[in-house]
């Protein structure tokens, strides 16, 4: 993860919906609006996959979209990271058990950060990005709280 320093100050996001109900998608869309203001961190949506640094995956991964996700990940140049947003992208969410569901995004591409929630709040999504970019330190709570 040393190479995270290369994109630390201006990461461009690519958002890909692999089967979500759109709940996580509208929270990802809300995360780029003025109330949360991600542009102060240099975060913005990239116009095409070839310009992207971070792939934001929402929704449960199906067999058909699994190949497309893999192709998209391979088309990203250079330093690249993946963030899985929502509990469906983590391990299938409520759609677990459908035989044609592959599961979470980590079955197809390497995932570097998970954001749990159904759907997670936009500030949590932004915070996950900042933790990934090591611009914020993660506090580890001791057992018993503090």
């Amino acid at each position: 993860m040393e190479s995270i320093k290369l994109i630390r100050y201006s990461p461009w996001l690519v958002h890909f919906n692999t089967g979500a109900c759109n709940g996580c998608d509208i929270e990802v869309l809300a995360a780029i609006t003025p109330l949360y203001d991600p542009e102060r961190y240099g975060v913005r949506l990239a116009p095409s996959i070839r310009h992207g640094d971070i792939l934001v995956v929402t929704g449960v991964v199906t067999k058909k979209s699994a190949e497309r996700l893999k192709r998209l990940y391979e088309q990203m140049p250079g330093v690249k990271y993946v963030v899985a947003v929502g509990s469906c992208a983590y391990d299938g969410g409520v759609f677990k058990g459908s035989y044609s569901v592959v599961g979470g995004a980590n079955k197809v591409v390497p995932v570097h950060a998970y954001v749990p929630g159904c759907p997670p709040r936009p500030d949590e999504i932004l915070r996950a990005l900042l933790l990934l970019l090591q611009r914020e330190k993660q506090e580890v709570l001791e057992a018993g709280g503090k």
Partner: protein
Amino acid sequence: MDDILKQYIVRKEFMKPNRDVYVVNAKNIRDVMKALKESYSGGIYLATIAAVDKVKENVFELNYFIHIVYLSKTIVIKTTVPRDNPRIDTVIDIFPGAYEAEAEAYDLMGIEFVGNKYLKRPFFAPVDVVAQNIYPLRKDAPV
């Protein structure tokens, strides 16, 4: 309503909360739809077609939900087709809005609508399910 469809009604039932159900014979479905469309032209649309797999009675049951804007009510036209030969006439030229509903019933339940040239597989179902000739929503489908 009763007098428009008088000659076709086999039985009249009731669906909660307050919908009238008219059971008709499958071979009269086009005449029933034409009669309804002519009586209420300019204020009627086909809401959806719901197919139910009744394994015990060995039939597929089709429910056509028609909404009449003038009367502000939805009525149900119910009919059955045998499970080993599920064919029924299409109503897509009377109600073009049946395109999506018939495509869905064909792709997932396997009911063939005679005369609808837009039916195809796979429309909704994935490629590997279609390759094994499985109709996913049937009760005996191995999914």
